[in-house]
């Protein structure tokens, strides 16, 4: 099988890599958004007497 510069395989691999990239970017955005929500919602506040230095 000959591999041309624009073989269908390249398109499929590009699509796969793009998909993984977008999923990772979305995961980062979700973790960031969740952290903001937890902090602003008081979900990550420390109890009195357990504050970190």
């Amino acid at each position: 099988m000959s591999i041309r510069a624009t073989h269908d395989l390249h398109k499929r691999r590009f699509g796969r890599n793009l998909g993984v990239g977008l999923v990772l970017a979305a995961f980062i955005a979700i973790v960031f958004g969740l952290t903001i929500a937890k902090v602003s919602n008081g979900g990550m506040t420390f109890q009195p007497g357990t504050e970190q230095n």
Partner: protein
Amino acid sequence: MSDASINASSIREDEAGFGDYFALLKPRVMSLVVFTALVGLLAAPVTVHPMVGFCAILFIAIGGGASGALNMWWDADIDRVMKRTRGRPIPSGKVEPGEAMALGLALSGMSCIMLALATNVFAGAFLAFTIFFYVVVYTMWLKRLTPQNIVIGGAAGAFPPVIGWIAATGSMAVEPWLMFALTFLWTPPHFWALALFMRSDYDDAGVPMLTVTHGRRATRVHILVYTLLLALFAVGASFSGIGGPVYLAVSLVLNALFIRGAFRIWRRDEATSEADNFAVERSFFKLSLLYLFLHFGAVLAEALLKPYGLGGWG
């Protein structure tokens, strides 16, 4: 690496694309998981931050998808035989079984940990138990062992509203278990109708579906009996914590239609069914999808109306 260094013989024309890996997560089953978990989360008597709620549903859905990938990995041999599943990524040769297993295990771990972090440890642990139940108890153990596989395995598909509720409240209550029971009782007639019109699929694969072990006549009887039990429970639930006038109206109409469908299936013989290519069985199967969707929609409507003094009976 340049193209010149690629060994042409190692290149597969049908190499998997991103969509093939996504298909491992059984997107259609995932939509049921998302909807029922969402109803469980929104019906809970607490307010959840929208971002936390979104994350909870997302990670429950990913957990459901991960168990789907593990199911496809384990069942690749029977998927290859059945017409309905022959086109799945592993039997069609696009994805290697080991890849599906790795994806399933990675997403299982990630979804449970992230759900625990986003909501509470109880919810994360319950999601882990659900994945274990679906993959180990149903897929690996019961599916090839007993004709009651669908009945017991149906529990796995019924857990999402319970997880949604726990994610919101951090505790257990009766209401999510009523939603669990609704899906649990709905699963057998839904799948047995499918088994009737998929005919020889399960037979060829050696899966002990009721149609194979007890015959098609017995399956028709079972559909009717389970539908009657489901109808009794579904209408009775109108007077419980998840019910109300809206739910009662929806449930009465749907159960009347569902019983009618089950009764028609029970009355038919194989010759009549084959003559019209299982039209009644197919329409019953379609109705079953609408049945569950609208019942959960009614539960959601009752929960959303409550703050305005309209939902429920009081």
